[in-house]
């Protein structure tokens, strides 16, 4: 097991190098630092000194890959690639283009993100599994048909509509909770209720439909027929046998997104003014702060790969028939 985890971790390294090189190419080769400086300082009437100054402040005044002027190893290390991209491997995110410490910002902002994403995931899971069970119990009836149709309708509504509609209905018309904002500690609750509800409703259609297919697939298997042949009631079969077996694909599917919960949800967070990593990313994108975007790309890939690793491990725990080699 440990050897397997170790091997998978080693396998992640070339992927992260790939991500790193890709972002490096995107951010520094497609457009040179000069272009970026000009973009930030205003397009036309920029003096060359101002550009040099801007690059100097942010450390973009080095050569891209090879610094011929620096002595010894400096030829490799005193470059933009080493300073800006390779440093990400030790989670040194450096400073943003506006001068803030990215690592510190991330460590502060991931908790509000988690405070939304985790309840959304858990409540959503509970609600969707319940609905899917219900639909599967009444399969091939009108409840099944209309349940699926409602799921498709819910899926077809833009997530923006759920957010705007929820804000308008609950926040503005009914005045139940504040429309947006955030407070640390226990006060966060009233700010979190609405985003969580909206998040759950937004995800219900797709996941209920997906879980329904899983349940129906399980219901067609031989052990279900055996259980029925033994004379067990349909309810017993559904809850004791089918639910347990269907939970394996459902939960392992959830594991892969667990690490990504830290990244938060871009749209929800910025609509509700939650100071999480999602709104951080959006702010970075709108203010064209490339350093932050670069850091988030790398962080996102690390978390995704971690999710894959956790999925593989959770398969072995959930289903002992699977052997890892």
């Amino acid at each position: 097991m440990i050897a397997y985890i170790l091997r998978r971790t080693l396998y992640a390294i070339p992927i992260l190098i790939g991500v790193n090189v890709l972002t490096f190419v995107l951010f520094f080769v497609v457009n040179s630092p000069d272009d970026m400086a000009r973009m930030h300082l205003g397009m036309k009437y920029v003096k060359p000194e101002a550009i040099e100054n801007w690059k100097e402040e942010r450390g973009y005044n080095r050569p891209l890959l090879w610094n011929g002027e620096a002595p010894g190893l400096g030829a490799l290390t005193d470059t933009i690639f080493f300073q800006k991209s390779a440093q990400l491997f030790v989670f040194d995110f450096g400073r943003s283009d506006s001068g803030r410490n990215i690592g510190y910002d991330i460590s502060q902002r991931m908790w509000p993100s988690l405070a939304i994403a985790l309840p959304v995931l858990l409540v959503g899971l509970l609600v969707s599994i319940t609905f899917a069970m219900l639909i599967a119990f009444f399969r091939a009836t009108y409840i099944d048909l209309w349940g699926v149709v409602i799921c498709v309708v819910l899926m077809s509504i833009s997530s923006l509509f759920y957010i705007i509609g929820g804000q308008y209905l609950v926040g503005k018309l009914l005045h139940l909770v504040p429309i947006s904002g955030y407070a640390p500690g226990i006060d966060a609750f009233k700010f979190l209720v609405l985003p969580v509800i909206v998040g759950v409703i937004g995800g219900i259609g797709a996941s209920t439909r997906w879980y329904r297919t899983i349940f129906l697939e399980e219901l067609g298997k031989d052990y279900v027929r055996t259980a029925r042949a033994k004379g067990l009631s349909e309810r017993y079969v559904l809850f004791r046998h089918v639910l347990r077996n269907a939970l394996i694909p459902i939960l392992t599917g959830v594991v892969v997104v667990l690490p990504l919960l830290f990244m938060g949800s871009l749209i929800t967070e910025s609509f509700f003014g939650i100071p999480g990593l999602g709104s951080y990313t959006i702010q970075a994108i709108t203010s064209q702060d490339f350093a932050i975007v670069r850091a988030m790309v790398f962080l996102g890939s690390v978390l995704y790969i971690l999710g894959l690793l956790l999925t593989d491990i959770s398969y072995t725990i959930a289903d002992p028939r699977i052997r890892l080699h």
Partner: protein
Amino acid sequence: MPVILWTDALIFLLVAVTVGFVLYVRHHEHLRAPWRQVLHSRLGMAAAVVLCVYVSIGLLDSLHFHPRLEGGTGAPRYSTELISVFDWIMGPIRERVEKTYSAPFASHLYVKEAMGRPGGEVVRAFPHLEYGGRHLADPAQKGWDILAISLRASAEGLLVWGGLGALLIVALSRRWGRRFSETLRTVVRGHGPIPWLVILLTAGVVILLAFLAARLGVKYHIFGTDKVGQDVFYLALKSIRTGLVIGTLTTLVMLPFAILLGIMAGYFRGWVDDVIQYVYTTLNSIPSVLLIAAAILMLQVYMSIHAERFESVTARADMRLLFLCIILGITNWTGLARLLRGEALKLASVEYIQAAQAFGVGNFTIIARHILPNVMHIVLISVVLDFSGLVLAEAVLAYVNIGVDPTTNSWGNMINSARLEMGREPIVWWSLAAAFVFMFTLVLSANLFSDAVRDAFDPRIRRG
């Protein structure tokens, strides 16, 4: 003077491919069978009717030209403005621009203005709209006027629908070799494999709405006007093309890579498999929004530095739309490639492929002749399933400012600009509502249609 933008060219390429595909399918019974099942699905066909309307509007909106200027002698002069055939048809609605916001069916502007009265005094009041409800002698009569126009439009719509329905039934009775009344009874009772009644009813609703919109649209602004006074109904219709382009061209640009790489990985295995898997795992591990953001930010920098390389604002917006499709395609092809790899792995060990290898048939001939036809159903299902997700994604991307160009008409841009006006009192809701209604209709029918296609093509679900 016609102009072909990049996305226009690709759209027509797509149309050509589709037509070719249809002609090919017609001559192959094993391919026709699943399509026949799609034709027999009620929800699927109702959705198909709605999709047809959207696609026709999108196609009309893809024929761009510079309109010829009136007057003048000698060589014809052309306007610098680039419009489409659809714009030209919609002329009466497109050109009626008010000053700023006005509510649906309003006869007065949304904001007060200082107005001079005949007596010389100045009062602040809601001014009359330039065009909306201008024909009314007394604005208090508006309700009756709308009712009268709607009744007339409904009557016309029903008439046209009845005519089309009769034509259809005549055509059907000829084909089936039956009498008119017999055919009518079969259709109305919903007998027969193809749900003609559902198709007719959906078409009826569409025709009715079209007539209502056309008759009311030239007298009022049926979805109100936006901040700069443009008719929201027209903008929502214009956005159809953007939605369709993103939903279809994205798949078109990614398809060759996904098919080729996916099948190669599964068929050749070994180092080819390793390399291809590495490429798509790497791409997949970057959160797609961030990859799109990074790419679009870089494009923005490039475009503003090299502004002189683009002929016009439209051409630049079009390039950005195309680039967005490509980058969305890059983030999207991995799923399909993985599916195809798995299927090709399975197929590569099947006996007829081994026989072909034993006969010394070349690898790429085997891929083209034996593997590709056997994975086409996966490709088709994933193309259709991806469509609605992409249309929805466009709105989200527009919100993050990494979607289509701000000058392009799209539902995302409409929602994004309307969102800022949510705080106004009374609330400006019509842009949002129009964008959501049009987007919802498209996505819902795409979802229903793709369900019908999946049911017909997925061998695990296919029955009989």
